[in-house]
């Protein structure tokens, strides 16, 4: 509802540098600095957890992360929006590895807060240009043949605060509006076939049950293609923040069309031009005109470690790690540069590289305290090469808010601190 991504220059507040930066940096060069520990628990002593019994089974009926991982949380940027009900929180990408995002850490973007829906009160209405308007319960949806698919979901506004230059210090904030999970759901085409489409059908409207009635128009070809009505993520039922009990999955397309708390699908012969696909989620170009229905998320990547929230704690062998994704297909290659884009080398993609899912990449280097300007660049199987920010701005200017997939630069200082910078 609010424009979450107004140019932050209006809200500048000069602050001291992040607390503790200098201290950590000073320690960074010493071998074991980051893990001093309590001598009582270190060899040759025998720690308390070895001498005494711990919690038994079912003491923790739904397991939580270790109490020592309390810093691994979603965070928001309060100056961005007028209220938390219409706002965004960011995935802590710098604390994660592999390609699957833990369900509780998936970024949130709500337009009217989280709808808390009793599954017994859930209905999905399917109507419009169909032979039979249908009503499904959640149990109905679960009876259909189902599929499991791993996809990334990126908010169109991810990196939207960076169009005018480096703003936020941390990949959680610059790139944290992306997550990648496994969905279980019914192919939308099965539901549409169940209702029977009229020959004039061309578009669908997908509408959420939240207080914003979040609604987007989607071309029928996509709806009949790979879209799912998903009710599970990572095996368990969707989290309320992610649309419990059912959401739309629209692979490769901007997150806004993945309507959460999906309550209604209407079939029509033209798009609705709802507020979220006109006044928002359209891309303002330098001449004042705007692109609309820019659904596909272009190939993109970011180095998650090291990054500003995760300083380099040692010298010697260092594994640079990051995430890449493309809404057009598979990520074929990721290149990494240590010198701000002068020279590149191919990173290693580890694990599975799935169609329109995140891939994990690694590049090893021997760091001896020299300044590094770290960049990554994704290349997908359509031949699309992630552009530099300068290349992107040349076409799109700096006002478009959405679809910023320019190459990110992190400066690693000799003391191990990492900063979000822009390079020529």
């Amino acid at each position, binding site marked *: 509802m609010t424009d979450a991504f107004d140019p932050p220059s209006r809200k500048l507040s000069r602050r001291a540098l992040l607390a503790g930066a200098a201290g950590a940096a000073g320690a960074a060069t010493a071998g074991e600095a980051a893990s001093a520990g309590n001598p009582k628990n270190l060899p040759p002593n025998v720690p308390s957890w070895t001498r005494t019994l711990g919690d038994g089974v079912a003491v923790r009926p739904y397991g939580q992360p270790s109490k020592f991982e309390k810093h691994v949380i979603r965070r928001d940027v309060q100056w961005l929006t007028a209220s938390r009900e219409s706002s965004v929180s960011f995935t802590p990408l710098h604390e994660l590895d592999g390609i699957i995002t833990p369900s509780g850490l998936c970024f949130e973007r709500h337009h009217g807060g989280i709808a808390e829906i009793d599954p017994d009160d859930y209905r999905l209405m399917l109507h419009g240009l169909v032979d039979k308007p249908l*009503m499904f319960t959640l149990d109905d949806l679960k009876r259909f043949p189902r599929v499991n698919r791993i996809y990334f979901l990126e908010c169109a506004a991810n990196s939207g605060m960076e169009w005018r230059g480096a703003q936020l210090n941390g990949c959680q904030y610059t790139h944290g509006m992306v997550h990648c999970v496994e969905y279980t759901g019914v192919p939308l085409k099965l539901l549409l076939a169940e209702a029977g489409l009229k020959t004039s059908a061309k578009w669908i409207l997908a509408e959420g049950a939240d207080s914003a009635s979040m609604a987007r128009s989607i071309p029928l070809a996509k709806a009949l293609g790979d879209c799912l009505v998903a009710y599970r993520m990572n095996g368990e039922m969707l989290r309320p923040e992610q649309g419990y009990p059912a959401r739309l999955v629209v692979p490769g397309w901007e997150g806004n069309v993945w309507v959460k708390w999906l309550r209604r699908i209407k079939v029509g012969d033209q798009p609705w031009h*709802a507020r979220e696909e006109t006044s928002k989620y359209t891309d*303002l170009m330098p001449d004042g005109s705007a692109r609309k229905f820019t659904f596909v998320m272009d190939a993109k990547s970011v180095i998650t470690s090291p990054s500003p*929230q995760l300083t380099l704690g040692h010298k010697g062998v260092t594994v640079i790690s990051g995430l890449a994704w493309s809404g057009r297909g598979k990520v074929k290659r990721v290149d990494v540069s240590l010198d701000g884009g002068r020279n590149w080398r191919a990173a290693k993609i580890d694990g599975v590289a799935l169609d329109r899912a995140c891939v994990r990449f690694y590049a090893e280097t021997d760091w001896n305290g020299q300044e590094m300007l770290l960049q990554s660049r994704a290349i997908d199987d359509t031949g699309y090469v992630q552009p530099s920010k300068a290349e992107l701005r040349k076409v799109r200017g700096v006002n478009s808010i959405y679809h910023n997939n320019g190459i990110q630069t992190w400066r690693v200082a000799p003391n191990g601190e990492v900063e979000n910078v822009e390079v020529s």
Partner: protein
Amino acid sequence: MSKCRSGVVAVGLFAALMIMQAAAQTKQPAPAGKKKTYAIGRIAEPREIAGWDIDVRPDGQGLPDGQGSVKAGEQVYLARCAACHGEFGESAGRWPQVAGGTGSLASDDPIKTVGSYFPYLSSVFDYVRHAMPFGDAQSLSNDELYAVVAYVLFLNDVVDDKFVLSKQTFGQVKMPNAGGFHGDDRETAERAFWNRRPCMTNCKAEVKIIGHARVIDVTPEEDKVLRRGVE
């Protein structure tokens, strides 16, 4: 007794399934033809659909009965909208500005409002109908809805102070930025991003840092979370 009842239910369900299957068989259109169906779900009743089917398209399809004048809209707006959007649509705090911004879209500070940016009247009407006032969605009567939208149009100099918005006058409103949008042209306008042989060595003569996030420093602060070493 309970057996008897479940038997009735079972027969009822069976009959319903038969009816639905029959309907599916007789009513599936020819082109969709051979597609398998599962006879899952039930027919959505018109009265059920009516309660949720309140979207409005640019051509006016979906507009409810009712009407509202600019004058009546001023009262609604001041009572229900101005606290967030400002008395003149200028915004109070961080809430969206709904009026003004004309001619700003190509500037360094584009202001997207109903008058300066929205391409269709339906885009604002449909949104207010569904989602406004924020936190009290779908609480306006149809007359209040027409009136408050008329008033927002007036705040944007799109209509005069005598204007009355209704199903009949809806199509007369000319939105200033109606021609301001075009489709996704990335595959042509950004063709250069494809099929390049990306440079691997000596790609730039020099690299200079031209911007620092720290100079701007708008990152939320937290004492504990940061500064952990890379494993």
